C-alpha cells in the first residue's frame, strides 16, 4: 500500500477524477437544458383533485403538475401547512393552476399529503390566451352574440370551428396593426423629419410645405381607412365566446377574440400530442413574444442575434485576418511583436462588461453623438445613432471577438508548410502574391474556424450588449420593408439577453421558466453546433496540412 501510494498511482486517479468530473458537469448542463427545454410544448395532463387549505377548507384544484421535490416538513409547517406525519421529509408539488385573472396567482407549491387522489377528466380544456396566460376549466357551452349555440358534448366541435374563425380574424388584425399601420407611421415620421430638416436649412418654401402637407394628408387618410377596417374586424371578432367552469365553481366566459389555442390534453392521443408539439415548436421559432415575453415565440430575438452577428462578422473578419497575417508573415521577432501579442491576449482577457462600458461611452455617446450632430440635426433632441443600437453592438462585439479570429487564423497560417511559400517565391511571385494566391487560400478553413468561433462567442455574450443596444422588447426589427430597409440605429432583441431578462426581470418567473429553458436550449444548440463545426473544420485542416508537410 505504501509503495502504491509512493508510486503515485492514486494521484493519477485523482487527476483522472478531475477530468471525469468536468465531463460529467458539461454533459449534465447540456442534458439538463435539453431535457427541460424540449419538454415545454408537450401537452401535459390536466389534473383534477382537491387540496386541504391551511384554514381547513377543502377546495378543488385543476391544473398541470409542473415540478416535484422533497422538502423538510418543518419548512412546510413554518409556512402554515398542517401536516400529519412523523417523517422529517415529504414531497411537494408545483401546480400550474392557470387563470391568473381569476385567482391572482397561477402557480402554487402544495405539499403532497394535503392532496387527494388525482383524476384526469377528459373534458378539461387548456386554453392558451393572448393575455393572462393559460386558462383551465371544464368546457360548458359556446355562445354567439351572447346566445348559447352548443352545450355539453356538442360544444367541442363548435369550439374548434369558431376558434379557427377567430384566429383568422386575429391574424388579419395583427397584420394590419403591425405592418400596414407601422408603415404609415414610419412614413409620417419620415415626413416630419424631412420638414424639420428643410426648416433648419431654411429651405422650407411654401411649395415644399404644401407638397409635404399633401403627402401627409394621403397617409392620414390611409391611416383612417386602416383604422376603420380594424374596428370592423374587431367587432366581428367579438361575436363568439365560450363558457367554462373553473376550479372554484365559477363559470367564466371567454371571448374567442382573446384565445390563441384550445386543447383537451386529457383527450389527445400520442399523434395529436406530437402534432401539437411541433406546431408549438414552430410558433416558438416564428412568432413574436407575448405577455412580457413569457409566452409566444422568440423570433425577434433570433433575428436580432443573427443580424448583429452578421454585422459583427463583416467588421471583425478582415481586421482579424490582417492582424494575423501581419503577426505571422511580416513581423520580425522583436519588441513590437511581443507588444502585439500582449495586446491580443489582453483584448481576449479584458472583461466583456468593460467592452460594454467602452462601447457605450466611445461608440454610442462620442461617435454616435457626433454623427447625430453632423448628419441628423432634424431629429434633435431624439437621438438617432447617439443611443444604443445594433451597429454599436456589432462594433463592440467585433472588438471583443477580434482575438478569437486572430488566434485561429494565426494557427492556420502557422500550419501552412514553409515549402509552399518558398516554392511560390522561387517562381517569382511577390510576397503579397504568395500570400494572396497560395497561403491564404490554404489557411482559409482556419479563418472560417476563427469566424465561426467568433460568431459563437458573440451569440452568447450578453453583458456588453446590455449597455450598447439590446432591449427586452424591440418594436421593430432592424431589417424591414421601409426604406432604407437596414436600420442600423435600431435597438434589437438578443437570445442571451432574452434569457436573462425573462428569467430574472419578468414579473412571473415561474410562468416564464419553461420558455427560458427552451430559449437556452436553442442558444446552446446554436453554439454547440457552431463550435463542433469549427472543431471539425480545424481538424480537417490539420490533417490536410500534415499530409502536405512531406512535400
Amino acid at each position, binding site marked *: 500500500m505504501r509503495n*502504491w501510494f509512493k508510486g*503515485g*498511482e492514486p494521484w*493519477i*486517479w*485523482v*487527476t*483522472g*477524477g478531475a*477530468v*471525469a468530473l*468536468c465531463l*460529467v*458537469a*458539461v454533459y449534465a448542463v*447540456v442534458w*439538463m437544458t435539453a431535457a427541460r427545454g424540449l419538454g415545454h410544448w408537450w401537452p401535459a395532463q390536466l389534473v383534477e383533485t382537491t387540496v386541504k387549505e391551511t384554514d381547513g377548507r377543502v377546495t378543488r384544484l385543476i391544473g398541470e403538475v409542473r415540478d416535484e421535490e422533497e*422538502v*423538510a*416538513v418543518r*419548512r412546510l409547517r413554518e409556512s402554515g401547512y398542517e401536516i400529519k406525519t412523523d417523517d422529517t421529509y415529504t414531497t411537494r408539488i408545483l401546480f400550474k393552476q392557470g387563470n391568473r385573472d381569476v385567482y391572482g396567482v397561477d402557480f402554487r407549491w402544495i405539499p403532497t399529503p394535503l392532496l387527494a387522489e388525482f383524476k384526469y377528466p377528459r373534458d378539461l380544456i387548456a386554453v392558451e390566451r393572448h393575455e393572462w396566460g393559460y386558462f383551465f376549466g371544464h368546457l360548458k357551452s359556446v355562445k354567439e352574440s351572447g346566445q348559447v349555440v352548443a352545450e355539453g358534448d356538442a360544444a367541442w366541435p363548435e369550439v374548434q370551428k369558431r376558434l379557427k374563425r377567430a384566429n383568422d380574424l386575429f391574424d388579419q388584425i395583427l397584420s394590419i396593426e403591425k405592418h400596414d399601420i407601422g408603415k404609415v407611421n414610419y412614413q409620417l415620421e419620415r415626413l416630419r423629419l424631412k420638414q424639420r430638416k428643410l426648416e*433648419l436649412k431654411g429651405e422650407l418654401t411654401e411649395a415644399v410645405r404644401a407638397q409635404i402637407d399633401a403627402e401627409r394628408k394621403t397617409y392620414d387618410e390611409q391611416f383612417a381607412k386602416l383604422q376603420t377596417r380594424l374596428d370592423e374586424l374587431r367587432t366581428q371578432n367579438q361575436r363568439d365566446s365560450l363558457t367554462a367552469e373553473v376550479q372554484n365553481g365559477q363559470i367564466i366566459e371567454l371571448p374567442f377574440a382573446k384565445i390563441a389555442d384550445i386543447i383537451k390534453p386529457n383527450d389527445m392521443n400520442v399523434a395529436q400530442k406530437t402534432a401539437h408539439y411541433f406546431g408549438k415548436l414552430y410558433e416558438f421559432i416564428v412568432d413574436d413574444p407575448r405577455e412580457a415575453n413569457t409566452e409566444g415565440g422568440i423570433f425577434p430575438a433570433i433575428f436580432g442575434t443573427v443580424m448583429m452577428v452578421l454585422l459583427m462578422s463583416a467588421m471583425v473578419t478582415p481586421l482579424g485576418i*490582417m*492582424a494575423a497575417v*501581419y503577426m505571422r508573415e*511580416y513581423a520580425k521577432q522583436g519588441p513590437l511583436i*511581443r*507588444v*502585439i501579442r*500582449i*495586446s491580443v491576449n*489582453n483584448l481576449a*482577457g*479584458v*472583461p*466583456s*462588461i*468593460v*467592452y*460594454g*462600458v467602452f462601447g*457605450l*461611452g466611445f461608440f454610442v455617446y462620442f461617435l454616435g453623438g457626433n454623427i447625430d450632430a453632423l448628419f441628423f440635426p432634424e431629429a434633435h433632441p431624439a437621438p438617432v445613432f447617439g443611443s444604443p443600437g445594433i451597429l454599436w453592438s456589432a462594433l463592440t462585439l467585433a472588438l471583443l471577438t*477580434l482575438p478569437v479570429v486572430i488566434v485561429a487564423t494565426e494557427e492556420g497560417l502557422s500550419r501552412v508548410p514553409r515549402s509552399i511559400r518558398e516554392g511560390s517565391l522561387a517562381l517569382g511571385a511577390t*510576397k503579397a*502574391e504568395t500570400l494572396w494566391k497560395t497561403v491564404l487560400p490554404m489557411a482559409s478553413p482556419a479563418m472560417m474556424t476563427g469566424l465561426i468561433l467568433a460568431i459563437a*462567442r458573440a451569440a*452568447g455574450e*450578453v*453583458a456588453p450588449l*446590455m449597455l450598447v443596444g439590446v432591449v427586452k422588447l424591440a418594436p421593430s426589427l432592424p431589417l424591414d420593408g421601409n426604406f432604407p430597409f437596414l436600420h442600423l440605429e435600431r435597438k434589437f432583441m438578443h437570445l*442571451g439577453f432574452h434569457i*436573462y431578462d425573462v428569467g430574472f426581470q419578468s414579473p412571473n418567473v415561474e410562468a416564464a421558466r419553461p420558455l*427560458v429553458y427552451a430559449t*437556452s436550449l436553442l*442558444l446552446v444548440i446554436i*453554439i*454547440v453546433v457552431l*463550435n463542433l463545426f469549427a*472543431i471539425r473544420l480545424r481538424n480537417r485542416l490539420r490533417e490536410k496540412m500534415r499530409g502536405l508537410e512531406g512535400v
Partner: protein
Amino acid sequence: MEKIEANITTAGGYTGRRMVKDKLFKYTMVFGGLSVIIAISTIFFYLAGVVAPLFMPAHVEKLNPIAVPATTGQSTVHLATEEQVEIGMRASDQGKITFFDLRTGKPLLEEKAALPAAVKATSFAAGDLRKRAMAFGTEDGRLLILKDDYKVSFTQDPKNPKKDIRSISPFIVYPLGNEALVLDDARQPLRKLAIQNDSQETTAVAETEDGRLLLASYTSESDFSGESVTVQRAALRELTKVQGEISQLLLDVKQRDLYVVHGGRFVSHFDVQDKSAPTLKQTVAVFPEGERITAATLLSGGFSLVVGSDQGNLVQWFQVRDADNVNTLTRIREFKPMAKAIVQIAPEHARKGFMATDAGGGVNLYYATSQRLLSESSTGGDKAVIGGFAPRANAIVLETDKGVIQVAHIENEYPEVSFGALWGKVWYESYEKPDFIWQSAAANSDFEPKFSIAPLTLGTLKAAFYAMLVAVPLAVLGAIFAAYFMSQKMRAVVKPSIEIMEALPTVILGFLAGLWLAPFVDNNLAGTLLALFLLPFSFLITAWIWHRLPHTLTDRVGPGWEAALLIPVVILVVWVAFALGHPMEAALFDGDMPRWVSNELGWTYEQRNSLVVGIAMGFAAIPIIFSIAEDAVFSVPKHLTSGSLALGATPWQTLFNVVLLTASPGIFSAIMVGFGRAIGETMIVLMATGNTAVMDFSIFTGFRTLSANIGVEMPEAAVGSTHYLLLFFSALVLFVFTFFINTLAELVRQRLREKYSSL
C-alpha cells in the same frame, strides 16, 4: 525587336505595379497588426480620460468684483442667485430687496419688503435654500415671509431662427400673504429668527428682546384661485431657556429639529417635531473652552450641522441613533482649518458641500461626505461678510466688508469622490457608524450618495476566490491528466468537450445557477457539501479497488482510461451524496440545514450565495485554465520525460519532479488568466447572487461585484454624473487589473516558450 521592347516595358510596368501592390498589401497588414495595439490603448485611454475629471480639484475662477451700487446705512443679510446665474439678489437688514445683473452689477429691480408701515425689521432668516423662503422679524414681534422668484420666457431670436432668447424677470412673492404674522403676543422685537416654510406648514423660531425663545407654527390654506391665503397660528410655545447669549438659530427643512448656538461654544438641540411639545434634547460643547463658535449652518437636507470657530476650525456634527434608538448629537469629522476666524458658512443647495469664509478674506470650498477641501481662494484681502452658492453650485457670490459684491464661477462636478470616500469607511448621515456603503441613488432628493468602491471590490475578489477554489484543482489536475496520462482516443473526446464547456454562454450558466442550482442547493445543502467532500475520496477508493482487482481484468483496459472509468463513479457518488443528504439533515441539523446554519452558527444564509456562484463560475473558469495548463504540460519536451522514465522513475514521479517543475510557470499563467476571467465575469454573478454589497467572506452570503454593479446601474446612471463616472472608474479598475494579470501571464508564457525551444 520593337515588339520585344514593348514587352519589356510592359513587363517593367507590370513589375512596378506588382511591387506597388506588394507594398500596399504589406502596409494593409501592418495596419491590421497595429490595430490591435490601437484598440487596446484606445480602450484604456478613453476610459482613463472619462474618469480623470473625478480626481481633478474643483476649479474656481478668480473672484470678480461687480459694480452693484452699495446700500448706505443698511447691511446685507442675504445674497443669492437664480438658477441660471444671470441675476443676483441681495436682501438688506431693512427689508430692501435688490435684484441685479450678475455680469454688470446693474440693478434690475429694487423693492422694499411689504413690512407694516413705520415698523422696522430687527431680524432676518433664510429658510431652506431650495425653497427660497426668507423672513423678516419686526420690532413689534411680527414676521413677514417672502420669496424671490423668477419668470423665464423665451422669444425667438430675430437674427437666428434656430435660437431662442431667454429672458428672466425677477419678482417677489409672499407665500403667506403680505400681511405680517404675529409671532410674539407680547409684541417684543424679534432679535434672532429661524424659519422654514412649505406648502402646508410654516415654523418660526425667534428670540425676543426680553430673552424668551418662542416656537410658532402656522398652517396655511390658499383658496381655489390661489390668490388669497388664510393663515392660522397652530401653536405657540416658549422653549426652555439656554445658557448664555444666543448667537444663531437653525431650523431644519423638515421642521423637526432646532439647533440653538449659544454661550459661545454650545449647541442645544430641541426636538420640535411636535410643535405643541417642543423638548430640549441635548446641549453639547462643540469646541473646548476658550474657542468660540463664530458661524454655523445646516447642510442641504437639514441633517448635518457644520460649525466654525474663531480659530478657523470647522467641524461637522449630526445626530446618531444608538442601539436604544436614542439620537445623540455626535461629532463626525473635522475639515482642514482656515487661517483666521470663520466668518460665515454657506451650504450648497442640493449637495453636501459648503463654503467657508474667514476674517482674512479666505474663501474655501469643502465637501462634507468626502471630507475634502475642494479649493482655496481669496477675496483679495477684504473680509467676506456674507455669501452664497448659486442653486446648481456652479457659482458663488460674496459681499465684502467694504460692500463690494464679488462673483466667481465654479467647476465642481465631482466633489463626492476622494480616496477616503472610495476605499475607506465613511460616516454617512443617519448611519450609526462609519461604514463601507455603495448606494448610488435613492428616491428622496436630499439623499447623500454613498460611493464606497470597497464592498464592490471585495465582492469581486470574493467571487473570484470561490470560483478559483472550484476551478483551480479541477482544471489543473484535469489538465495534467489530459496532457500526460490520457490515452489518445480519450483525448479526442475530452478536448472538444472542454471546448464546448468554454463555449457555453455564461448567461446560461448564470440562469441555471440562479433558477435551478440555488434553490436546489438550498434544499439539499448537506447533500451538496457531502458530494464536494466525498468526490476526492471516491477517486482514491476506486483507485485502490482497481489496484486490487486481478490484473487479467484490469490489463484489458489500457492506461489512460482512468477518467472514463471514473465517470460512473462520479455519477454514483453524487447520487449517493444527495440520497444521504436529507436523512443527514434530518439527523444532524433538525431537518433544515440552512436554518441550522443561521440559527445555530449565527451565519447569515442566503439562497443565492457564494457556494452557488463558486460552482457556476468555477465551471466557467475551468476550460480556460484547463486549455492553457494542458498546453504547458503537453509541450514539455519529450526527451526530458523519457530520460526520467528511463532512469526508473514512475510516471507520477516523472510528472511531479520533471514535468510539473518545467511547466509550472505555464500552469501559473493559466491560473492567472482564469483568475482574470473570474474577476470580470458579469452574467453569472448578476444572476446567481442577490447582488447586495456586503463586506464579508462567508460562503453562505452573496456579494455585489464591480462588473455586476456596472451591468445593473449603467443603464440608469445619468450621463456625466459622478455615479456615471464612477461606473467608468469601476470598468477602468477591472481593465487595469485584468491587463496586469494577462500581461504577466503572457510574459510568463513567452518566457516559457523560449525556454522550451532552447531545451
